[in-house]
Protein backbone atom coordinates (compact mmCIF):
# COMPACT_ATOMS: atom_id res chain seq x y z
CA UNK A 1 0.00 0.00 0.00
CA UNK A 2 2.65 2.49 1.04
CA UNK A 3 4.63 1.45 -2.04
CA UNK A 4 1.71 2.28 -4.29
CA UNK A 5 1.22 5.59 -2.56
CA UNK A 6 4.89 6.40 -2.89
CA UNK A 7 4.89 5.39 -6.55
CA UNK A 8 1.90 7.67 -7.12
CA UNK A 9 3.29 10.68 -5.32
CA UNK A 10 6.75 10.44 -6.79
CA UNK A 11 5.07 9.76 -10.12
CA UNK A 12 3.24 13.05 -9.89
CA UNK A 13 6.51 14.74 -8.92
CA UNK A 14 8.22 13.27 -11.96
CA UNK A 15 5.20 14.28 -14.02
CA UNK A 16 5.67 17.83 -12.80
CA UNK A 17 9.25 17.72 -14.04
CA UNK A 18 8.10 16.38 -17.40
CA UNK A 19 5.53 19.10 -17.64
CA UNK A 20 8.07 21.80 -16.81
CA UNK A 21 10.21 20.47 -19.63
CA UNK A 22 7.33 19.93 -22.01
CA UNK A 23 5.36 23.13 -21.41
CA UNK A 24 7.66 25.36 -23.41
CA UNK A 25 8.06 22.73 -26.08
CA UNK A 26 4.33 22.23 -26.34
CA UNK A 27 3.65 25.97 -26.42
CA UNK A 28 6.14 26.53 -29.20
CA UNK A 29 5.16 23.46 -31.12
CA UNK A 30 1.45 23.94 -30.65
CA UNK A 31 1.40 27.53 -31.71
CA UNK A 32 4.27 27.75 -34.15
CA UNK A 33 4.62 24.25 -35.49
CA UNK A 34 8.31 24.28 -34.64
CA UNK A 35 9.42 21.02 -33.08
CA UNK A 36 12.28 22.47 -31.13
CA UNK A 37 15.13 20.00 -30.81
CA UNK A 38 17.23 22.72 -29.20
CA UNK A 39 14.80 22.83 -26.30
CA UNK A 40 17.00 20.46 -24.34
CA UNK A 41 19.88 22.88 -24.73
CA UNK A 42 17.76 25.73 -23.41
CA UNK A 43 17.18 23.63 -20.32
CA UNK A 44 20.80 22.69 -19.90
CA UNK A 45 22.16 26.17 -20.40
CA UNK A 46 19.68 27.61 -17.92
CA UNK A 47 20.63 24.85 -15.51
CA UNK A 48 24.33 25.65 -15.78
CA UNK A 49 24.00 29.41 -15.60
CA UNK A 50 21.44 29.17 -12.81
CA UNK A 51 23.92 27.07 -10.89
CA UNK A 52 26.83 29.40 -11.63
CA UNK A 53 24.84 32.30 -10.22
CA UNK A 54 23.26 30.52 -7.32
CA UNK A 55 26.53 29.15 -5.98
CA UNK A 56 27.99 32.62 -6.06
CA UNK A 57 25.06 34.19 -4.27
CA UNK A 58 24.82 31.51 -1.63
CA UNK A 59 25.64 27.90 -2.28
CA UNK A 60 22.92 25.72 -0.84
CA UNK A 61 20.83 28.63 0.39
CA UNK A 62 17.30 29.64 -0.50
CA UNK A 63 18.27 33.07 -1.86
CA UNK A 64 20.83 31.31 -4.02
CA UNK A 65 18.28 28.87 -5.38
CA UNK A 66 15.70 31.56 -6.04
CA UNK A 67 18.29 33.67 -7.81
CA UNK A 68 19.18 30.59 -9.82
CA UNK A 69 15.57 30.09 -10.86
CA UNK A 70 15.23 33.72 -11.89
CA UNK A 71 18.43 33.48 -13.89
CA UNK A 72 17.07 30.31 -15.47
CA UNK A 73 13.92 32.13 -16.55
CA UNK A 74 15.82 35.04 -18.01
CA UNK A 75 18.47 32.93 -19.69
CA UNK A 76 15.83 30.64 -21.17
CA UNK A 77 13.85 33.58 -22.52
CA UNK A 78 16.92 35.28 -23.94
CA UNK A 79 18.41 32.26 -25.65
CA UNK A 80 15.05 31.34 -27.07
CA UNK A 81 14.48 34.86 -28.36
CA UNK A 82 17.92 34.91 -29.93
CA UNK A 83 17.37 31.50 -31.48
CA UNK A 84 14.14 32.73 -32.95
CA UNK A 85 15.57 36.00 -34.23
CA UNK A 86 18.72 34.56 -35.72
CA UNK A 87 17.67 31.14 -36.94
CA UNK A 88 13.97 30.39 -36.92
CA UNK A 89 12.77 33.71 -38.27
CA UNK A 90 14.41 33.24 -41.64
CA UNK A 91 12.71 29.92 -42.12
CA UNK A 92 9.09 30.81 -41.50
CA UNK A 93 6.66 28.23 -42.74
CA UNK A 94 9.43 25.87 -43.66
CA UNK A 95 8.78 23.59 -40.75
CA UNK A 96 11.12 20.82 -41.74
CA UNK A 97 14.00 23.26 -42.09
CA UNK A 98 13.12 24.78 -38.74
CA UNK A 99 13.27 21.37 -37.15
CA UNK A 100 16.59 20.73 -38.85
CA UNK A 101 18.10 23.98 -37.63
CA UNK A 102 17.12 23.17 -34.08
CA UNK A 103 18.58 19.68 -34.50
CA UNK A 104 21.88 21.25 -35.53
CA UNK A 105 21.77 23.74 -32.69
CA UNK A 106 21.03 20.95 -30.24
CA UNK A 107 24.01 18.92 -31.41
CA UNK A 108 26.35 21.87 -31.45
CA UNK A 109 25.39 23.36 -28.11
CA UNK A 110 25.64 20.11 -26.18
CA UNK A 111 29.15 19.73 -27.54
CA UNK A 112 29.87 23.30 -26.52
CA UNK A 113 28.61 22.71 -22.99
CA UNK A 114 30.85 19.68 -22.76
CA UNK A 115 33.74 21.84 -23.80
CA UNK A 116 32.96 24.47 -21.20
CA UNK A 117 31.76 22.48 -18.20
CA UNK A 118 33.18 19.04 -18.93
CA UNK A 119 31.15 15.96 -19.61
CA UNK A 120 30.74 14.78 -16.03
CA UNK A 121 27.70 15.75 -13.99
CA UNK A 122 28.48 18.49 -11.50
CA UNK A 123 27.02 18.11 -8.02
CA UNK A 124 25.05 21.08 -6.84
CA UNK A 125 24.19 22.09 -3.30
CA UNK A 126 20.65 22.79 -2.35
CA UNK A 127 18.86 24.20 0.68
CA UNK A 128 18.75 21.49 3.31
CA UNK A 129 14.98 21.23 3.40
CA UNK A 130 14.88 20.07 -0.22
CA UNK A 131 17.03 17.07 0.64
CA UNK A 132 14.78 16.00 3.47
CA UNK A 133 11.53 14.11 3.33
CA UNK A 134 8.00 14.68 4.48
CA UNK A 135 6.04 11.80 5.89
CA UNK A 136 2.78 11.12 4.11
CA UNK A 137 0.83 8.11 5.42
CA UNK A 138 3.96 6.23 6.31
CA UNK A 139 5.99 7.06 3.22
CA UNK A 140 8.88 9.46 3.08
CA UNK A 141 8.35 11.79 0.17
CA UNK A 142 11.38 13.85 -0.82
CA UNK A 143 10.60 17.52 -0.38
CA UNK A 144 11.92 18.73 -3.72
CA UNK A 145 8.96 16.98 -5.35
CA UNK A 146 6.63 19.51 -3.74
CA UNK A 147 8.66 22.33 -5.21
CA UNK A 148 8.41 20.76 -8.66
CA UNK A 149 4.68 20.25 -8.39
CA UNK A 150 4.13 23.81 -7.23
CA UNK A 151 6.24 25.24 -10.02
CA UNK A 152 4.51 23.13 -12.65
CA UNK A 153 1.08 24.31 -11.56
CA UNK A 154 2.26 27.90 -11.58
CA UNK A 155 3.70 27.61 -15.08
CA UNK A 156 0.53 26.02 -16.37
CA UNK A 157 -1.64 28.77 -14.94
CA UNK A 158 0.62 31.56 -16.18
CA UNK A 159 0.82 30.28 -19.72
CA UNK A 160 -2.91 29.65 -19.92
CA UNK A 161 -3.51 33.21 -18.69
CA UNK A 162 -1.07 34.56 -21.26
CA UNK A 163 -2.87 32.81 -24.05
CA UNK A 164 -6.31 33.84 -22.87
CA UNK A 165 -5.62 37.42 -21.95
CA UNK A 166 -3.53 38.42 -24.91
CA UNK A 167 -4.07 38.06 -28.62
CA UNK A 168 -0.63 36.59 -29.25
CA UNK A 169 -2.02 33.10 -29.34
CA UNK A 170 -4.47 34.06 -32.04
CA UNK A 171 -1.91 35.94 -34.10
CA UNK A 172 0.47 33.05 -33.98
CA UNK A 173 -1.99 30.33 -34.77
CA UNK A 174 -3.05 32.37 -37.75
CA UNK A 175 0.55 33.15 -38.61
CA UNK A 176 1.52 29.53 -38.68
CA UNK A 177 -1.26 28.76 -41.08
CA UNK A 178 -0.61 31.63 -43.40
CA UNK A 179 1.93 34.16 -42.34
CA UNK A 180 1.58 36.25 -45.47
CA UNK A 181 -2.07 36.84 -44.87
CA UNK A 182 -1.46 37.91 -41.29
CA UNK A 183 0.98 40.55 -42.44
CA UNK A 184 -1.51 41.52 -45.11
CA UNK A 185 -3.92 42.24 -42.27
CA UNK A 186 -1.42 44.78 -40.96
CA UNK A 187 -0.04 42.69 -38.10
CA UNK A 188 3.65 42.37 -37.32
CA UNK A 189 3.66 38.66 -36.87
CA UNK A 190 7.39 38.49 -36.26
CA UNK A 191 7.21 40.15 -32.89
CA UNK A 192 4.51 37.78 -31.74
CA UNK A 193 6.63 34.83 -32.77
CA UNK A 194 9.62 36.10 -30.88
CA UNK A 195 7.57 36.69 -27.76
CA UNK A 196 6.06 33.23 -27.78
CA UNK A 197 9.44 31.67 -28.37
CA UNK A 198 10.81 33.65 -25.46
CA UNK A 199 8.01 32.52 -23.18
CA UNK A 200 8.54 28.91 -24.18
CA UNK A 201 12.23 29.43 -23.51
CA UNK A 202 11.55 30.94 -20.11
CA UNK A 203 9.48 27.91 -19.17
CA UNK A 204 12.33 25.72 -20.38
CA UNK A 205 14.81 27.76 -18.37
CA UNK A 206 12.85 27.33 -15.18
CA UNK A 207 12.48 23.65 -16.02
CA UNK A 208 16.23 23.40 -16.48
CA UNK A 209 17.00 24.79 -13.06
CA UNK A 210 14.37 22.62 -11.43
CA UNK A 211 15.65 19.56 -13.29
CA UNK A 212 19.03 20.21 -11.72
CA UNK A 213 17.28 20.38 -8.34
CA UNK A 214 15.63 17.05 -9.09
CA UNK A 215 18.82 15.30 -10.13
CA UNK A 216 21.07 17.15 -7.72
CA UNK A 217 23.46 17.70 -10.60
CA UNK A 218 23.95 19.75 -13.71
CA UNK A 219 25.38 18.09 -16.78
CA UNK A 220 25.62 18.81 -20.50
CA UNK A 221 23.19 16.04 -21.41
CA UNK A 222 20.60 16.73 -18.76
CA UNK A 223 18.23 18.67 -20.98
CA UNK A 224 18.58 16.45 -23.99
CA UNK A 225 17.93 13.31 -22.00
CA UNK A 226 14.65 14.78 -20.80
CA UNK A 227 13.70 15.97 -24.25
CA UNK A 228 12.49 12.62 -25.48
CA UNK A 229 10.00 12.44 -22.61
CA UNK A 230 8.88 15.94 -23.43
CA UNK A 231 8.27 14.91 -27.03
CA UNK A 232 6.28 11.90 -25.96
CA UNK A 233 4.24 13.93 -23.50
CA UNK A 234 3.54 16.57 -26.11
CA UNK A 235 2.31 14.03 -28.62
CA UNK A 236 0.25 12.02 -26.16
CA UNK A 237 -1.29 15.16 -24.72
CA UNK A 238 -2.24 16.40 -28.14
CA UNK A 239 -0.07 18.71 -30.15
CA UNK A 240 -0.57 22.21 -28.96
CA UNK A 241 -2.77 21.46 -25.99
CA UNK A 242 -1.14 22.69 -22.83
CA UNK A 243 -3.64 21.06 -20.53
CA UNK A 244 -3.21 17.91 -22.58
CA UNK A 245 0.51 18.10 -21.97
CA UNK A 246 -0.12 18.51 -18.26
CA UNK A 247 -2.38 15.49 -18.07
CA UNK A 248 -0.08 13.43 -20.26
CA UNK A 249 2.93 14.38 -18.15
CA UNK A 250 1.40 12.98 -15.03
CA UNK A 251 0.01 9.96 -16.84
CA UNK A 252 3.29 9.12 -18.50
CA UNK A 253 5.27 9.57 -15.29
CA UNK A 254 2.92 7.45 -13.23
CA UNK A 255 2.84 4.69 -15.85
CA UNK A 256 6.60 4.83 -16.01
CA UNK A 257 6.90 4.59 -12.25
CA UNK A 258 4.71 1.55 -11.93
CA UNK A 259 6.11 -0.21 -14.98
CA UNK A 260 9.64 0.46 -13.82
CA UNK A 261 9.03 -0.71 -10.32
CA UNK A 262 7.07 -3.84 -10.99
CA UNK A 263 8.35 -5.04 -14.35
CA UNK A 264 11.39 -2.93 -15.07
CA UNK A 265 9.99 -1.79 -18.37
CA UNK A 266 9.21 1.87 -17.78
CA UNK A 267 10.45 3.19 -21.07
CA UNK A 268 8.95 0.36 -23.08
CA UNK A 269 5.63 1.02 -21.38
CA UNK A 270 5.78 4.68 -22.38
CA UNK A 271 6.67 3.83 -25.93
CA UNK A 272 3.78 1.41 -26.02
CA UNK A 273 1.43 4.04 -24.59
CA UNK A 274 2.61 6.46 -27.25
CA UNK A 275 2.08 3.95 -30.03
CA UNK A 276 -1.41 3.12 -28.78
CA UNK A 277 -2.42 6.76 -28.43
CA UNK A 278 -1.08 7.71 -31.83
CA UNK A 279 -2.82 4.83 -33.51
CA UNK A 280 -6.13 5.02 -31.66
CA UNK A 281 -6.35 8.76 -31.34
CA UNK A 282 -3.78 10.34 -33.64
CA UNK A 283 -4.57 13.83 -32.39
CA UNK A 284 -3.60 12.93 -28.84
CA UNK A 285 -5.68 13.04 -25.70
CA UNK A 286 -6.70 16.68 -25.88
CA UNK A 287 -5.65 17.56 -29.40
CA UNK A 288 -8.05 19.32 -31.69
CA UNK A 289 -9.33 17.21 -34.51
CA UNK A 290 -8.06 18.65 -37.73
CA UNK A 291 -10.30 19.02 -40.71
Amino acid at each position, binding site marked *: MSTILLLLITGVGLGALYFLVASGLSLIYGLMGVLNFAHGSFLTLAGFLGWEVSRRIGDGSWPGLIAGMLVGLVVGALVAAITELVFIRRLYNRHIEQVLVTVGLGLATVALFEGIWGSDPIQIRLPEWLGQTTEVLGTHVPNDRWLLIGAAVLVLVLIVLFLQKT*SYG*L*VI*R*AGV*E*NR*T*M*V*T*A*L*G*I*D*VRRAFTIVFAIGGAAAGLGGVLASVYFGTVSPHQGTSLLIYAFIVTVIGGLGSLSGAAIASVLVAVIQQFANYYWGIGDLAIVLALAVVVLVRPTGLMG*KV*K*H
Partner: protein
Amino acid sequence: MTAILTVRGLHARIAGQQVVEDVSFDVAATGVTALLGRNGVGKSSTIKALLGLYERTGEITFDGERIDRLMTHRVVQRGIAYVPEDREVFGQLTVEENLRLAERGGAPNRAIVGDLFPELIQRAKQQAGTLSGGQQQMVSLSRALMNDNKLLLVDEPTKGLAPLIVGTVTKALEAAAERTPMLLVEQNLQVVRALAHTVIVLSGGRVVHTGPAAEFLDSDLVHRHLGVSTDQEAA
Protein backbone atom coordinates in the same frame (compact mmCIF):
# COMPACT_ATOMS: atom_id res chain seq x y z
CA MET B 1 -9.02 63.33 -61.07
CA THR B 2 -6.48 62.93 -58.32
CA ALA B 3 -4.87 59.61 -57.58
CA ILE B 4 -4.62 57.93 -54.20
CA LEU B 5 -2.07 55.48 -55.51
CA THR B 6 0.42 56.02 -58.26
CA VAL B 7 2.53 53.22 -59.59
CA ARG B 8 5.54 53.94 -61.78
CA GLY B 9 7.76 51.38 -63.40
CA LEU B 10 6.75 48.52 -61.16
CA HIS B 11 8.66 45.31 -61.70
CA ALA B 12 8.16 42.08 -59.82
CA ARG B 13 10.15 38.92 -60.13
CA ILE B 14 9.12 35.55 -58.89
CA ALA B 15 11.59 32.73 -58.98
CA GLY B 16 13.75 34.73 -61.28
CA GLN B 17 10.91 35.19 -63.67
CA GLN B 18 9.61 38.61 -64.51
CA VAL B 19 5.86 38.45 -63.91
CA VAL B 20 5.21 42.18 -63.68
CA GLU B 21 7.14 44.32 -66.10
CA ASP B 22 7.39 48.07 -66.03
CA VAL B 23 3.80 48.59 -64.98
CA SER B 24 2.60 52.14 -64.38
CA PHE B 25 -0.89 53.26 -63.50
CA ASP B 26 -2.92 55.41 -61.15
CA VAL B 27 -5.74 54.47 -58.88
CA ALA B 28 -8.21 57.30 -58.66
CA ALA B 29 -8.96 58.80 -55.28
CA THR B 30 -12.61 57.91 -55.68
CA GLY B 31 -14.53 55.05 -57.15
CA VAL B 32 -13.38 51.78 -58.62
CA THR B 33 -10.47 51.20 -60.91
CA ALA B 34 -10.54 47.73 -62.47
CA LEU B 35 -7.48 45.70 -63.33
CA LEU B 36 -8.32 43.26 -66.10
CA GLY B 37 -6.62 40.60 -68.17
CA ARG B 38 -6.65 36.96 -69.09
CA ASN B 39 -5.51 34.18 -66.77
CA GLY B 40 -1.89 34.38 -65.85
CA VAL B 41 -1.17 37.90 -67.12
CA GLY B 42 -0.07 39.11 -63.71
CA LYS B 43 -3.05 40.80 -62.13
CA SER B 44 -2.74 39.11 -58.80
CA SER B 45 1.01 39.48 -58.91
CA THR B 46 0.67 43.21 -59.42
CA ILE B 47 -1.48 43.54 -56.34
CA LYS B 48 0.82 41.39 -54.28
CA ALA B 49 3.77 43.45 -55.43
CA LEU B 50 2.00 46.61 -54.31
CA LEU B 51 1.62 45.10 -50.86
CA GLY B 52 5.20 43.97 -50.74
CA LEU B 53 4.31 40.32 -50.77
CA TYR B 54 6.56 39.83 -53.78
CA GLU B 55 9.97 41.31 -54.40
CA ARG B 56 9.47 44.48 -56.34
CA THR B 57 11.18 47.54 -57.74
CA GLY B 58 9.63 50.74 -58.93
CA GLU B 59 7.96 53.71 -57.42
CA ILE B 60 4.76 53.28 -55.48
CA THR B 61 3.25 56.36 -53.92
CA PHE B 62 0.25 56.07 -51.67
CA ASP B 63 -1.47 59.10 -50.30
CA GLY B 64 1.61 61.18 -50.94
CA GLU B 65 4.01 58.72 -49.32
CA ARG B 66 6.42 56.31 -50.92
CA ILE B 67 5.52 52.82 -49.79
CA ASP B 68 7.71 50.68 -52.01
CA ARG B 69 10.23 50.08 -49.30
CA LEU B 70 7.82 49.35 -46.48
CA MET B 71 7.15 45.91 -45.13
CA THR B 72 3.73 44.48 -45.77
CA HIS B 73 2.26 45.10 -42.36
CA ARG B 74 3.39 48.71 -42.47
CA VAL B 75 1.82 49.17 -45.89
CA VAL B 76 -1.43 47.78 -44.58
CA GLN B 77 -1.25 49.95 -41.49
CA ARG B 78 -1.22 53.00 -43.78
CA GLY B 79 -4.85 52.12 -44.51
CA ILE B 80 -4.78 49.63 -47.34
CA ALA B 81 -6.99 46.57 -47.12
CA TYR B 82 -6.55 43.46 -49.20
CA VAL B 83 -8.97 40.78 -50.29
CA PRO B 84 -6.82 38.00 -51.71
CA GLU B 85 -7.88 35.92 -54.66
CA ASP B 86 -7.90 32.62 -52.85
CA ARG B 87 -9.84 33.74 -49.76
CA GLU B 88 -6.99 32.81 -47.44
CA VAL B 89 -9.09 32.54 -44.35
CA PHE B 90 -7.41 30.93 -41.39
CA GLY B 91 -8.92 27.49 -41.50
CA GLN B 92 -7.90 26.50 -38.00
CA LEU B 93 -9.46 29.58 -36.43
CA THR B 94 -13.13 30.21 -35.94
CA VAL B 95 -15.02 32.80 -37.96
CA GLU B 96 -15.08 35.06 -34.95
CA GLU B 97 -11.32 34.71 -34.47
CA ASN B 98 -10.72 35.43 -38.13
CA LEU B 99 -12.64 38.66 -37.82
CA ARG B 100 -11.11 39.62 -34.50
CA LEU B 101 -7.66 39.20 -35.99
CA ALA B 102 -8.50 41.56 -38.81
CA GLU B 103 -9.72 44.39 -36.58
CA ARG B 104 -7.50 47.36 -36.97
CA GLY B 105 -7.36 50.94 -35.89
CA GLY B 106 -10.07 53.00 -34.22
CA ALA B 107 -13.55 51.63 -34.64
CA PRO B 108 -13.98 48.51 -36.71
CA ASN B 109 -17.47 48.31 -38.05
CA ARG B 110 -18.66 44.85 -37.08
CA ALA B 111 -22.22 45.72 -37.95
CA ILE B 112 -21.41 45.74 -41.60
CA VAL B 113 -20.67 42.02 -41.40
CA GLY B 114 -24.08 41.28 -40.00
CA ASP B 115 -25.73 43.47 -42.60
CA LEU B 116 -23.95 41.94 -45.55
CA PHE B 117 -23.62 38.33 -44.46
CA PRO B 118 -25.96 37.43 -41.62
CA GLU B 119 -24.81 33.80 -42.12
CA LEU B 120 -21.45 34.57 -40.62
CA ILE B 121 -22.92 35.80 -37.38
CA GLN B 122 -24.67 32.48 -36.88
CA ARG B 123 -21.47 30.68 -37.71
CA ALA B 124 -19.23 32.77 -35.48
CA LYS B 125 -17.98 29.73 -33.57
CA GLN B 126 -17.46 27.51 -36.60
CA GLN B 127 -13.95 26.69 -37.73
CA ALA B 128 -13.38 28.70 -40.87
CA GLY B 129 -11.84 25.71 -42.60
CA THR B 130 -15.17 23.94 -42.54
CA LEU B 131 -17.06 26.79 -44.15
CA SER B 132 -18.27 26.42 -47.68
CA GLY B 133 -16.28 28.13 -50.39
CA GLY B 134 -18.67 31.01 -50.67
CA GLN B 135 -18.85 31.47 -46.91
CA GLN B 136 -15.09 31.72 -46.78
CA GLN B 137 -15.24 34.38 -49.46
CA MET B 138 -17.65 36.27 -47.21
CA VAL B 139 -15.20 36.10 -44.31
CA SER B 140 -12.45 37.30 -46.55
CA LEU B 141 -14.50 40.27 -47.71
CA SER B 142 -15.67 41.12 -44.21
CA ARG B 143 -12.11 41.31 -42.97
CA ALA B 144 -11.45 44.12 -45.40
CA LEU B 145 -14.74 45.97 -45.28
CA MET B 146 -14.90 46.01 -41.49
CA ASN B 147 -12.11 48.55 -41.06
CA ASP B 148 -11.83 52.13 -42.00
CA ASN B 149 -9.58 52.08 -45.05
CA LYS B 150 -8.08 54.53 -47.45
CA LEU B 151 -7.76 52.03 -50.27
CA LEU B 152 -9.14 48.60 -51.04
CA LEU B 153 -7.28 46.06 -53.12
CA VAL B 154 -9.80 43.42 -54.09
CA ASP B 155 -8.89 40.33 -56.11
CA GLU B 156 -11.83 38.50 -57.68
CA PRO B 157 -14.34 39.12 -54.90
CA THR B 158 -17.29 37.41 -56.55
CA LYS B 159 -15.53 34.21 -57.44
CA GLY B 160 -17.54 31.26 -56.20
CA LEU B 161 -20.42 33.33 -54.92
CA ALA B 162 -24.00 32.47 -55.70
CA PRO B 163 -25.82 34.97 -57.92
CA LEU B 164 -27.87 36.21 -55.02
CA ILE B 165 -24.75 37.05 -53.06
CA VAL B 166 -22.97 38.39 -56.11
CA GLY B 167 -25.69 41.00 -56.16
CA THR B 168 -25.26 41.75 -52.48
CA VAL B 169 -21.50 41.90 -52.71
CA THR B 170 -21.60 44.11 -55.75
CA LYS B 171 -23.83 46.51 -53.86
CA ALA B 172 -21.58 46.34 -50.82
CA LEU B 173 -18.53 47.10 -52.91
CA GLU B 174 -20.39 49.92 -54.56
CA ALA B 175 -21.22 51.34 -51.18
CA ALA B 176 -17.69 50.86 -49.97
CA ALA B 177 -16.34 52.53 -53.08
CA GLU B 178 -18.32 55.61 -52.25
CA ARG B 179 -16.22 56.04 -49.16
CA THR B 180 -13.04 54.28 -50.18
CA PRO B 181 -11.26 54.10 -53.51
CA MET B 182 -10.74 50.60 -54.83
CA LEU B 183 -8.51 48.64 -57.17
CA LEU B 184 -10.54 45.67 -58.36
CA VAL B 185 -9.56 42.51 -60.21
CA GLU B 186 -12.62 40.79 -61.58
CA GLN B 187 -13.43 38.27 -64.30
CA ASN B 188 -17.17 38.89 -64.18
CA LEU B 189 -17.54 41.73 -66.62
CA GLN B 190 -21.04 42.53 -65.45
CA VAL B 191 -19.65 43.34 -62.09
CA VAL B 192 -16.94 45.42 -63.71
CA ARG B 193 -19.52 47.26 -65.69
CA ALA B 194 -21.56 47.96 -62.60
CA LEU B 195 -18.69 49.22 -60.50
CA ALA B 196 -15.68 50.47 -62.40
CA HIS B 197 -15.13 53.85 -63.96
CA THR B 198 -11.67 53.12 -65.25
CA VAL B 199 -10.02 49.96 -66.50
CA ILE B 200 -6.40 49.00 -66.70
CA VAL B 201 -5.71 45.99 -68.89
CA LEU B 202 -2.68 43.79 -68.47
CA SER B 203 -1.14 41.35 -70.87
CA GLY B 204 2.08 39.44 -70.39
CA GLY B 205 2.91 41.41 -67.28
CA ARG B 206 2.53 44.79 -69.00
CA VAL B 207 -0.17 47.41 -69.19
CA VAL B 208 -1.73 47.32 -72.64
CA HIS B 209 -4.69 49.58 -72.18
CA THR B 210 -6.00 52.22 -69.83
CA GLY B 211 -9.26 54.04 -70.22
CA PRO B 212 -12.83 54.58 -69.13
CA ALA B 213 -14.64 51.37 -68.29
CA ALA B 214 -17.79 51.69 -70.33
CA GLU B 215 -15.89 52.68 -73.45
CA PHE B 216 -13.61 49.67 -73.09
CA LEU B 217 -16.37 47.18 -72.39
CA ASP B 218 -18.32 48.28 -75.42
CA SER B 219 -15.42 48.23 -77.80
CA ASP B 220 -13.80 45.29 -79.55
CA LEU B 221 -10.84 45.80 -77.23
CA VAL B 222 -12.67 43.41 -74.93
CA HIS B 223 -12.24 40.81 -77.55
CA ARG B 224 -8.66 41.68 -78.28
CA HIS B 225 -7.45 41.77 -74.69
CA LEU B 226 -9.76 39.44 -72.85
CA GLY B 227 -10.72 37.05 -75.63
CA VAL B 228 -14.41 37.69 -75.05
CA SER B 229 -16.66 38.12 -78.00
CA THR B 230 -18.80 41.15 -77.42
CA ASP B 231 -22.08 39.33 -77.75
CA GLN B 232 -20.90 36.78 -75.21
CA GLU B 233 -20.38 39.50 -72.69
CA ALA B 234 -23.83 40.81 -73.31
CA ALA B 235 -25.40 37.40 -72.69
